[in-house]
């Protein structure tokens, strides 16, 4: 079981996919010689050639649009969007073309396109480089939206996404790129459509994903010191949601806090709150509480620590829930 950084784990996942299936192509800005601004595609062009690891022009609509064309031709493109805030020029191609093609053709045409997006804050970046835009894509029927939080999932969830015949928005939390973790050479027992209970507990369910998982785990440690036994669930798949695992937990704990980096208003936490309330109404001792980025544009780097949910804000919500 080698220990890899998330960046390297994804890199080896791409390498495996390129080795296993000649139809897989990797494409994006600077993915070739540079190996991507986060080095996720490091060395791939050297080994698989510029025809399979494609440095593209600087045009996001073009990246997704040509990936759709390549998929129509039988290829399986894995696109990299350089930063979360730069996926918007491709928005029309993603929501009107990529997401809808299968439904529009009555199921005849599938588009196995993966769009990798380094996501979220915490790395002290300038504006547009720390966005959390998963709610836009989760609200879009026809897409699968997933988010990894550790090297094992970065590697295996990506390989599963590439094998999937549906379009997948694949989020990679930037703040975790350099964190280590074990990556087994087997996918393990967890299918891609399941959430994972990363810390079992009984007093309250904390739901989160991506870069916030570590914060939630630390919050659970801190709460434990005060006698509260939090269950932490890593959602992994954001659309569809694994409501079975989620509701199963909340039915037991009776309390739920959702934590994400994105602004809460009409964010994914809103969906989870509404769905969980409908499924677990009589089990809930408190409303589902949401902790997220404030409902302002992502702030300058110096303020991101205050903007992003931190231990205190998570614990504050936990306290409010417990004392509701």
């Amino acid at each position, binding site marked *: 079981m080698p220990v890899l950084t998330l960046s390297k784990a994804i890199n080896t996942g791409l390498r495996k996919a390129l080795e296993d299936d000649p139809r897989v*192509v990797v494409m994006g800005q600077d993915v070739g010689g540079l190996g991507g601004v986060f080095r996720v595609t490091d060395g791939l062009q050297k080994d698989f050639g510029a*025809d399979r690891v494609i440095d*593209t*022009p600087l*045009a996001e*609509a*073009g990246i*997704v*649009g*040509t*990936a*759709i*064309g*390549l*998929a*129509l*031709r*039988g*290829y399986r*493109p894995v696109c990299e969007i350089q930063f979360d805030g730069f996926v918007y*020029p491709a928005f*029309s*191609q993603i929501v*009107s*073309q990529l997401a*809808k093609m*299968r*439904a*529009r*053709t*009555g*199921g*005849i*045409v*599938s588009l196995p396109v993966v769009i990798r997006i380094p996501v979220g804050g915490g790395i002290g970046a300038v504006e547009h480089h720390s966005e959390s835009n998963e709610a836009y894509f989760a609200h879009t*029927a*026809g897409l*699968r939206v997933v988010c990894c939080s550790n090297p094992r999932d970065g590697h295996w969830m990506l390989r599963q996404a590439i094998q*999937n*015949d*549906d379009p997948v928005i694949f989020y990679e939390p930037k703040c975790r790129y350099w964190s280590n973790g074990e990556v087994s050479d087997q996918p393990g027992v967890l299918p891609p*459509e399941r959430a994972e209970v990363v810390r079992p507990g009984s007093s309250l369910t904390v739901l989160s994903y991506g870069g916030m998982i570590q914060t939630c785990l630390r919050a659970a440690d801190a709460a434990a010191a005060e006698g509260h036994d939090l269950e932490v669930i890593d959602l992994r798949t954001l659309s*569809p*949601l694994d*409501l*079975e695992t989620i509701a199963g937990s909340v039915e037991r704990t009776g309390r739920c806090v959702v934590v994400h980096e994105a602004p809460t208003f009409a964010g994914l936490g809103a969906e989870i709150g509404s769905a969980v309330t409908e499924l677990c109404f009589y089990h809930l001792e408190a409303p589902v509480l949401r902790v997220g980025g404030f409902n302002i544009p992502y702030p300058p780097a110096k303020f991101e620590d205050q903007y992003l949910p931190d231990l205190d804000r998570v614990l504050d919500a936990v306290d409010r829930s417990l004392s509701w």
Partner: protein
Amino acid sequence: MEPVQLLDTDGRLRHNPDWPLEITPELCRDLYRRMKRARRFDDEALALQRQGELGLWLQSLGQEAAQIGSVTALRPDDHVFPSYREHAAALSRGITPAELLVQWRGNRHSGWDPAHYRFHIYTLVLAAQLPHAVGYAMGVQRDGSGEIVAAYFGDGASSEGEANEALNWAAAAGAPVLFFCQNNHWAISTPTQIQMRAPLHQRARGFGLDAHLVDGNDVLAVHAVTTAVAEQIRAGGGPALIEAVTYRLGGHSTSDDPGRYRSASELDSWTARDPIARLEALLTREGWLDAQFRAEVESECDGLAEETRKVCRELPLGDLGELFGAVLTEETPLLATERRGYRDLVSSYVD
């Protein structure tokens, strides 16, 4: 720059050494038949819309030469990415009236298997099909096969960012794409001079594409230029663009009232340049339009019209429930629940 013309507006052949084309009776008759069929189909579809059998129709009326002259210049294994008005091209490629109408009746979003006809479904979001065409062509490049990709779009669509990204990308990648623009002078009510200052073929050259301007109502010129350009692309010459100057003789769609924005005299002047009449004049002059052939075409068109009317009314409706399964390759629990809820509700009405 003058558009390439092989047939003048009176249907007289013009010598044009730059664009050699073997102008045989067979070729002319074949093009004529295809254009007549397309026109008749369009007439019927319009009538069906007026009768309430179709929700909407966008006529190809007047653009038959541009579409048929070009699509017949491609090889059967070349791939076509149409916009939404390419009925003449689609019909010429073998797509059936039923397959063409079902989208406009409102039963489905698309009517045919794009892989089967090597003709992609219609794209209503302007210019969105152009990067698809480029990507497909990148696949063709990687496969090392000798196919090319033809992408159709309108003068209006050329203003979209995605259209220009596609032109630039194709040029940079050297992808085997033939961009075919039907400049029909209007984008709904917006005339070309609002869209652009310089003509599109000039813009394409600016991107590094080979580009040509052709009289889009001259089916022989369109055919000759497209044939030559397609072969040049096939030979590895890189992408190219053809701008075909034509005219939308109908409204933008059956919801449109073109009288609000264009003059009767403009319409008249283009009606006088009808592409079918022009070819017919040539056929007549050359004695290639004998009574038997004329009758043959007429009866073929009658048959097509009858089929069109018949299949339209019989188009299968399917049901909404099927759509739940078509969104993703596997139905999600949420969709399964919704589908069940929908079925329960539907059956509760029946009870």
